[in-house]
């Protein structure tokens, strides 16, 4: 069915120029600018851990903005002299609004935190084969292969330093993996594993992140500070620390959710019976020690003979790598750019009013 070429000549020229520019970028090995992806400019002085304070302060600005807007919108409520403490009200507002959004989006995206170094951690290795399938497939081989494929895919963007905790079949202790991620100043840490389950008929996908519980006190403390309720230095430091914890937790959760989603969707395409066990927290030492968003993905189940057979197919391993890649990129793209713009707008409004 041929269309009547509805596009205008200008449209066509625009498209041809786009093709030309895209090819120029390929020739020059440049990255095509993508929308809503965090910028990948390395800035050692303001890397993840060092940016916690900046982020926390920005949170305070948002809270202030939320409060300001709320007060502008509802002066009568204020005049009514509600007995609710202002800070608590802001905290509630944040909980209900910004936090709800943040739960479905990336704070890294909100604050435009860069992600440059991605550390991939293929589980097990050397004398530690991990789990072994009935046909002899070893977890350590699958994790290494998928990690290599994932690295190749991420490398293709030319925007990341993609490193691996092991490049070959050797044992790397957990503490060494953690130390490697720290030394390399990782911005993201993705540990790849394969599961084994007592019920060999089951295939599942699950992604873990380390974290205790969401510390709402951190957010409330920040909100209180913003409306003038002074904290001592110690309290402020404590709040910053806990904000950092919350950010790592929240970012890890977001990354895990994103990876889990793409991974499960991908696996469901080849196995309608696969179970989505979700993104959830778990006490994994390797995640605890890493200070940046970190997840552990159980990408497949080796105890299931059919799944084991699939894992021996390079195409399936490529599919898994593709799903992990998609999950990481989806997380990086973060749908909250608009929300950040709103937050920034609130800040601007505040400045304007102050003027």
């Amino acid at each position, binding site marked *: *069915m041929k269309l009547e070429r509805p596009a205008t000549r200008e449209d066509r020229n625009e498209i041809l*120029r786009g093709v030309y520019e895209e090819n120029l970028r390929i020739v020059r090995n440049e990255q095509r600018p993508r929308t809503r992806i965090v910028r990948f400019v390395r800035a050692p002085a303001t890397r993840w851990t060092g940016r916690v304070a900046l982020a926390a302060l920005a949170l305070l600005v948002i809270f202030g903005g939320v409060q300001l807007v709320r007060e502008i919108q509802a002066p009568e409520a204020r005049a009514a002299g509600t007995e609710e403490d202002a800070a608590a009200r802001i905290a509630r507002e944040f909980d209900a609004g910004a936090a709800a959004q943040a739960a479905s989006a990336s704070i890294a995206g909100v604050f435009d935190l860069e992600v440059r170094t991605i550390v991939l951690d293929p589980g097990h290795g050397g004398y530690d084969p991990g789990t072994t399938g009935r046909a002899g497939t070893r977890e350590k081989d699958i994790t290494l292969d998928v990690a290599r494929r994932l690295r190749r895919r991420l490398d293709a963007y030319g925007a990341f330093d993609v490193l691996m905790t092991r490049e070959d079949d050797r044992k790397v202790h957990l503490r060494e993996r953690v130390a490697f991620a720290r030394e390399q100043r990782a911005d993201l840490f993705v540990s790849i594993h394969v599961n084994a389950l007592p019920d060999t008929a089951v295939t599942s996908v699950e992604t873990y992140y380390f974290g205790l519980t969401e510390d709402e006190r951190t957010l409330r403390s920040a909100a209180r500070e913003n409306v003038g309720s002074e904290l001592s230095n110690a309290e402020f430091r404590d709040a910053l620390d806990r904000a950092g914890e919350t950010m790592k937790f929240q970012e890890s959760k977001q990354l895990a959710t994103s990876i889990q989603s793409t991974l499960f969707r991908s696996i469901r395409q080849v196995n309608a019976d696969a179970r989505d066990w979700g993104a959830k927290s778990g006490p994994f030492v390797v995640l605890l020690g890493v200070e940046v968003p970190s997840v552990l993905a159980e990408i497949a189940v080796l105890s299931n003979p059919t799944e084991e057979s699939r894992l021996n197919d390079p195409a399936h391993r*490529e599919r898994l790598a593709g799903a992990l890649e998609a999950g990481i990129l989806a997380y990086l793209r973060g749908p909250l750019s608009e929300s950040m713009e709103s937050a920034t707008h609130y800040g601007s409004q505040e400045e304007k009013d102050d003027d």
Partner: protein
Amino acid sequence: MAAKKRKTTTKKADDVLHIGIDLGTSRSAIAASNGKRNWVESYVGWPKDFVARKMLGKEILFGEEALKNRLSVQLVRPLENGVIREGTDRDVEAVKELLHHLIGLVEPGENQKIHAAVGVPAEALRVNKLAIRDTVREYADALMIVSEPFAVAYGQGALNNALVIDIGAGTVDFCIMHGTMPGEEDQRTLTTGGDYVDRQLLGRLTERFPAASFNQTQVRHFKEQYGFVGKTNGRVKVSVPVEGKPVEHDITDAVQQTCGSIIAPIVEATIDLIARYDPEFQDQVKRNIFLAGGGSQIRGIITELEDALKEYGSFKVAAVDDPLFAGADGALALAQDMPQEYWDEMG
């Protein structure tokens, strides 16, 4: 300024042969501005040893010929799941040879410059773009590469408010056109293409008829010949040897279930992709969906897709006229439309 530049660099029509190539996982096609078109199965085979070389009388075989002599050759299908298979030298060399062979099929003039636009699976463009470009460059004076669904869209004139779904062997590629060069956010790739269907079908048939000797190539032919989704009026019966004797097998259910398994992921990806745009734009795109690639030839697929999409609104799905050449024709149209000054930069 641009016109002046164009005047100084424009070649006489006969000096340049524009070609469009669809470098596919399963089949590759070429269309040229001299009116010649051809296609070949994307297989490359090198004789395994001296004896095979002497018997075959060739240093290298392509397509169906390579497939037929697979026992005597080292057979390479260089694109798998939409990317250069393992990125090995052999795979890259196979892509080069395949392209060389394709270009030879359209018989460029001895001194003619070749300006080639090459459509590759969207996934390959993303992952192997530099490798593919380097591979093709050897045989073209200037070249541009584009994603396959985009080439199809361009050829169809579906440049605005349209969605192209290219159901290929390795991947199913989605590309939304909205009047500009589509970005990554406008595209999706699924790996539930023809090869996936073949593997599923082989699995089902082997399970259902354990005594019969099915193989992948045979199953692919069954799919291409009898593939359907939805309702059928007749039964699909094929003759496959069991212990050396030809035995008729009814493979209707297996074919129906396997081919039908690609519908759900396509629907999911379609909705996921369209839902990201403004509602007004969504409605227009829903009425402008084009199916391309070998999978678009599966009987009943349009009806089945429209039925499955019904709960999300009113969809109009159509198959492109000439799926085998839609990508190559589109790439050729793009090559011919491309201003000369752009080609000058692509040498």
